[in-house]
């Protein structure tokens, strides 16, 4: 299974139209194929980064299903709808993702994914994208052993984040080396402390910690705070 990750730079005055099109037409059109489902529709939380930026993640069963999706968009039944979506955004940047070996999310039962825009509470995700200066595999292994394994042992009431998926970019469809964590924020008080804590610990004085070990493989990453829409199939 692969996942299409798209970052849409939406035209501000067309933001509502863009969301309406995705919710009312695009999601259902994808579901007419057995091999594709929209999973997440996420708004980049204003005040924490770029305005009018939307992230969508679509599950695709396999290469043949992705091929078919491309054919539908370029010259098939999705061509006109794709053009209308294009009219509502400046551009979209996409990449194809594979789950890494330890990711909790590996497969999605596509026929179980809601496509009816049912409403629910909002969730906020911290999407971390990292670019190691070491081989990509070493970064993914570090996340496994020194981040994911430790976080799994944290009592639920103390958890800031729940790692729901970890991805690497499929060869040739984006940046290498790059890996992505999709982390659901579980505790907003803890998030508040993270954002307001003035005492940034010096990782070099904490030998053996994740922050210190992490610097051995990367010092560049970006966190995005992404809020699901009220109808996002997954949230």
């Amino acid at each position: 299974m692969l996942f299409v990750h798209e970052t849409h730079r939406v035209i501000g005055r067309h933001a509502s139209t863009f969301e309406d099109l995705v919710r009312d037409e695009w999601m259902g059109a994808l579901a007419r194929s057995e091999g594709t489902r929209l999973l997440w529709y996420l708004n980049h939380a204003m005040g924490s980064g770029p305005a009018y930026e939307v992230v969508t993640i679509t599950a695709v069963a396999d290469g043949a299903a992705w091929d078919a999706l491309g054919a539908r968009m370029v010259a098939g039944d999705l061509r006109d709808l794709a053009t209308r979506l294009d009219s509502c955004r400046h551009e979209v940047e996409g990449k194809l993702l594979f789950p890494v070996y330890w990711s909790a999310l590996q497969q999605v039962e596509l026929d179980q994914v809601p496509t009816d825009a049912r409403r629910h509470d909002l969730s906020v995700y911290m999407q971390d994208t990292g670019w190691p200066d070491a081989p990509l595999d070493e970064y993914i292994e570090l996340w496994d052993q020194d981040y994911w394994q430790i976080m799994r042992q944290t009592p639920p009431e103390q958890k800031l984040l729940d790692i729901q998926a970890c991805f690497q970019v499929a060869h040739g469809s984006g940046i290498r080396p790059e890996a992505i964590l999709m982390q659901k924020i579980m505790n907003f008080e803890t998030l508040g402390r993270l954002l307001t804590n003035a005492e940034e610990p010096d990782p070099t004085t904490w030998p053996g910690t994740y922050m210190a070990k992490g610097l051995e493989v990367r010092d560049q990453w970006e966190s995005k705070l992404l809020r699901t829409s009220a109808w996002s199939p997954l949230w």
Partner: protein
Amino acid sequence: MLFVHEFHKVVGKRAAAFEAAYRDGWMPRLAEGDEARLAWYFDLSHGSGLAYRVVTVTAVADGAAYVRLAERVAHGDLQAWARDLDGLQHESHGRVLTTLPWSPSIPPLADIPTGGVTREPSLYMEDTMWPFPGRLRDYVEAAGAVYRPSLGAEDARMHMNVALGLETLPGAGRSPEVTLLQRLSSLPPLIALLTQDIPPEVTGPGSWMHEALDLRDRWRSRLLRTAPWSPLP
């Protein structure tokens, strides 16, 4: 047929090893199967842009073949090769592209050389355009109807031809985006383009330069030189 287009930021001191990884690793490893081939290996010409930049174009049979190739890189027999490559490049930026309806095609995969080629380098102008929102289809159509034929006209200012016309496949790069890979057949017109003002008749009303501004006003040109061993010239 699909094309994996990669733009590599190579570690300067490891440039020769990087090239060898593609020539002696990637190209022959793909040749063990029948659904993917390295098509071009280009160096971005020094003096025309960023240093130590390489463009590779890999042809794959279809989407399923592409995903099988990507899986080999992620956790299959090409994983170690990719891990070694991580030490030879700062990063690469890849896109998966499909041909435009009017694009010329390249030889079948089975006919693409997989080694033993040595020839004079060719120079390409790779143009990448970003049409205005909602105008991708209009741009593709106009480029095929007006721009491409103009390259073959007797009074063409540039002596080059489109080798491939490409657009990004969904979710595998930036969109809207169109890339034209154009092979130069003569150098003097390029030098004239670089050193002389563009005459008004080329930019005035009715010209492609003028009318296409309704569809896009941003593009980027790269001058790319094939390696002597590049499978396609």
